[in-house]
């Protein structure tokens, strides 16, 4: 009570407010009740969603009085449980109110309330419940996290105590210094409290109501997506929209190809949409989408069906389906631990991309919209079991007519043999081999840039088989490849650059099954280095070097350079193959020459240059220590009596050997290309074929023919077969 001279001070200072014990008591009860209701509401909601039953928390509380029978005691036990909850809540609220005042700030009260909530949780979980209410302890053990969160909510309720104290504080002095009857608190404070209370109640109600809408949300989401998709449909197991926060969670989403519904092409255990809150600061309401552990599973039938579909995959309505699910545009997209499996057939192991993590942000170009590529991109994944790839860069998803991107990539330890079943379709077989590489790829409506800094392939065995059944397809493929290369040569806005490409400790073989007998040529223990390959002439020529063993024995060196010339093919090449064990070439000798050898070494030296339609060069085969036996002595067949006309040479007898008895000879390669428009690639292939196959073998035949008569009295030796390449 304030008296006497103090009244003057009070008059000068205005009214004074003090919290009475009654105010504190009431505030503690009110805050405790709010906290208790929040806590109980949350636990009941959680129990309902998880299938434990919405009344389980009340029954568990009632077990304090009824023991385990509270689980079957019906409404009475639940009512007792509710009263227990509220009673304890109010008591603790009163105790809390003793330690705060009307002046305690909201933040401090919140921290204090939460701290008290955690302390109560720890005490209940560790000490109180196991001894006083083991029935409830057993039930809580099934939902430990929910129980903890519930205590945080209780603490948040306690944090309202200072506000309640301010509301209920009623004692003041008037200007005369007399204590007047208790008055109502300032309306403003009560109004704010009511608004706050209603708001809190609304939030709780929305939170609880969310769970009752799940069935409807699921059905509507599934229908909305299926309306937009073409050729595919989705099946959705569960959906939940949390009205407080706008969080939409889809569980068990399957994407099914209508043409081949089994198995589902994608299975997404969880897909989540939520508002990207930080972008509200930029005055944009956009969404963040997460796909958790999606699995894509495609077999060959489904892939072929998709390839043959008139509507391309990207036009199947995916974006529309995504936008139909959530009302806001997607600004951030994340894939967490994705998996892609392609089943080629029943025999070969599937191709597997695992642990795919992908994130892209700023899709709507909210930040840095003037940058060429404003959106960040990152991905990493495991390729075919042991390989790893990382992609980092930027993109512009809003670019027209299609999105552009510029990214750096790194690839490590990718097993090439995994691709073997697929590339057999182009007559190639691959075993072993590990791929490493890094570089940059930029693809947009304005530019295509592929800049490979380095690629290394280690220990690969590549086999090409030229077969009768695929001859025509192979020829078309060579032609098409050549055309494609020429198309990209010096093409504006297309930059293809390969700075360094190395193949180490590898083997390459070519088998020709169109000849009788079939023959095989190979290089083993081979290292190839290709530098500065570009599709633009001004980048200068590419350099190629090769070191290896021809047929396992001939020391081979190839060096050359070639240019993406605008005036037809342009290359320089030097070839040196020394001391090849000639019997290892018997198959090809039989195939072309109808003879074989018992011993000898074969060497060949060549230099060829093609530029501006002119070809200059030579091929010089050399044979040493030759011992030849007729393969079919009664038959005058299979001997090439004259060189075939060079396709790309003007002179019809350009490669025809001069009549000489020498084993070593030099064959001129000089002339004009009759088809200057052929690609550099085709030109190299044709020169190799004509010079080495068509020219050398006839030369060999003529060189050895004069000795054939004297050889007939020697006993026939079985020629050695071609040894397989060492790998």
């Amino acid at each position, binding site marked *: 009570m304030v008296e006497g001279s103090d009244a003057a001070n009070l008059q000068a200072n205005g009214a004074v407010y003090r919290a009475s014990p009654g105010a504190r008591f009431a505030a503690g009860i009110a805050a405790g009740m709010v906290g208790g209701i929040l806590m109980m509401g949350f636990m009941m909601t959680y129990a309902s969603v998880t*299938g434990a039953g919405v009344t389980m928390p009340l029954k568990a509380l009632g077990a304090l009085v009824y023991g385990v029978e509270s*689980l*079957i005691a019906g409404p009475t036990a639940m009512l007792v449980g509710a009263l227990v909850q509220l009673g304890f809540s109010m008591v603790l609220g009163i105790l809390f109110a003793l330690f705060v005042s009307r002046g305690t700030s909201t933040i401090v009260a919140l921290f204090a309330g939460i701290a008290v909530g955690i302390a109560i949780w720890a005490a209940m979980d560790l000490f109180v419940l196991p001894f006083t209410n083991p029935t409830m302890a*057993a039930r809580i053990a099934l939902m430990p996290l929910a129980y903890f969160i519930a205590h945080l909510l209780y603490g948040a309720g306690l944090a309202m105590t200072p506000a309640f104290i301010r509301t209920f504080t009623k004692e003041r002095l008037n200007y005369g210094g007399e204590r007047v009857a208790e008055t109502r608190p300032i309306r403003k404070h009560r109004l704010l409290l009511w608004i706050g209370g209603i708001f809190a109640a609304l939030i709780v109600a929305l939170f609880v109501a969310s769970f009752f809408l799940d069935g409807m949300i699921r059905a509507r989401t599934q229908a909305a997506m299926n309306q937009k998709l073409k050729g595919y449909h989705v099946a959705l197991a569960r959906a939940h929209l949390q009205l407080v926060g706008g969080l939409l969670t889809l569980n068990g989403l399957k994407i099914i190809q209508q043409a081949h519904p089994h198995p589902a092409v994608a299975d997404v255990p969880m897909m989540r949409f939520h508002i990207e809150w930080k972008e509200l600061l930029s005055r944009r309401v956009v969404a963040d989408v997460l796909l958790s552990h999606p699995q894509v599973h495609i077999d060959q039938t489904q892939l072929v069906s998709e390839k043959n579909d008139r509507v391309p995959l990207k036009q199947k309505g995916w974006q529309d389906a995504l936008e139909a699910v959530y009302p806001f545009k997607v600004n951030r997209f994340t894939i967490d631990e994705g998996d892609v499996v392609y089943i080629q057939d029943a025999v070969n192991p599937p191709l597997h991309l695992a642990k795919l993590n992908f994130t892209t942000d700023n899709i709507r170009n909210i930040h840095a919209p003037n940058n060429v590529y404003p959106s960040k991109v990152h991905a990493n994944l495991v390729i075919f079991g042991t390989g790893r790839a990382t992609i980092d860069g930027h993109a512009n998803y809003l670019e027209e007519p299609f999105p552009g991107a510029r990214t750096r990539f790194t690839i490590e330890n990718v097993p090439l043999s995994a691709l073997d079943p697929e590339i057999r379709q182009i007559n190639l077989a691959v075993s072993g081999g590990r791929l490493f590489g890094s570089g940059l790829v930029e693809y947009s409506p304005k530019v295509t840039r592929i800049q490979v800094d380095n690629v290394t392939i280690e220990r690969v065995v590549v086999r090409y088989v030229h077969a009768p059944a695929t001859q025509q397809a192979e020829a078309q493929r060579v032609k098409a490849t050549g055309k494609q290369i020429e198309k990209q040569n010096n093409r504006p806005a297309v930059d293809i650059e390969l700075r360094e490409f190395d193949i180490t400790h590898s083997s390459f073989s070519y088998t020709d099954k169109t000849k009788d007998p079939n023959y095989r040529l190979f290089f083993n223990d081979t290292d190839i280095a290709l530098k500065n390959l570009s599709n633009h002439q001004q980048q200068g020529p590419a350099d190629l070097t090769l070191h290896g063993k021809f047929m396992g024995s001939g020391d081979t060196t190839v060096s050359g350079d070639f240019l993406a010339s605008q005036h037809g093919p342009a290359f320089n090449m030097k070839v040196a193959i020394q001391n090849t064990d000639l019997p290892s070439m018997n198959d090809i000798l039989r195939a072309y020459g109808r003879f074989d050898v018992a011993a000898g070494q074969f060497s060949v030296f060549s230099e060829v240059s093609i530029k501006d339609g002119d070809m200059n060069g030579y091929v010089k085969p050399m044979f040493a220590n030759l011992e030849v036996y007729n393969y079919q002595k009664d038959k005058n067949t299979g001997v090439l009596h004259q060189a075939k006309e060079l396709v790309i040479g003007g002179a019809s007898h350009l490669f025809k050997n001069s009549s000489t008895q020498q084993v070593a000879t030099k064959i001129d390669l000089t002339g004009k290309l009759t088809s200057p428009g052929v690609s550099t690639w085709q030109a190299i292939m044709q020169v190799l074929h004509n010079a080495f196959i068509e020219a050398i073998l006839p030369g060999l035949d003529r060189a050895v023919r004069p000795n054939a008569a004297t050889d007939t009295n020697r006993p026939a030796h079985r020629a050695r077969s071609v040894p397989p390449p060492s790998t």
Partner: protein
Amino acid sequence: MEIALGKMAEEKASTTEIRAYADQLVQDHTNVDQTVVAMAQKSGAHLQNGAAAHREGRHEIVHEKQLERKLKSASGPDFDRLFLQQTSSDHERLIRKLQQDREDASDDDLEALIDKMIPILEQHRELAQILMKKEQT
């Protein structure tokens, strides 16, 4: 099996308490089943279907079939008694088995799951015994 028994008792039990008990059985066992399936999926284990998983021998199948016939043909207090006896003994057996499994288990998650399941099963057993005593009085 408990789920099936519980569902039968929800319809056929003659007292509110036993129906409440049956309802609680169904809810708890369904919940636990979902937790076990989720854990199995997470760990990559393959679960047999319910019938096969509980099969321990031909006599078990025969016993279950006999019990099912008995319960279907019973009604009123007879059904209540049979139901409570069966659930009590089933839970006793389940608790012993789980305690043994817990000793054999080497996986932390599995041990934690068993630790959570046993008290719930003990509550069911206790309730069954309380209700049986009430039936007898």
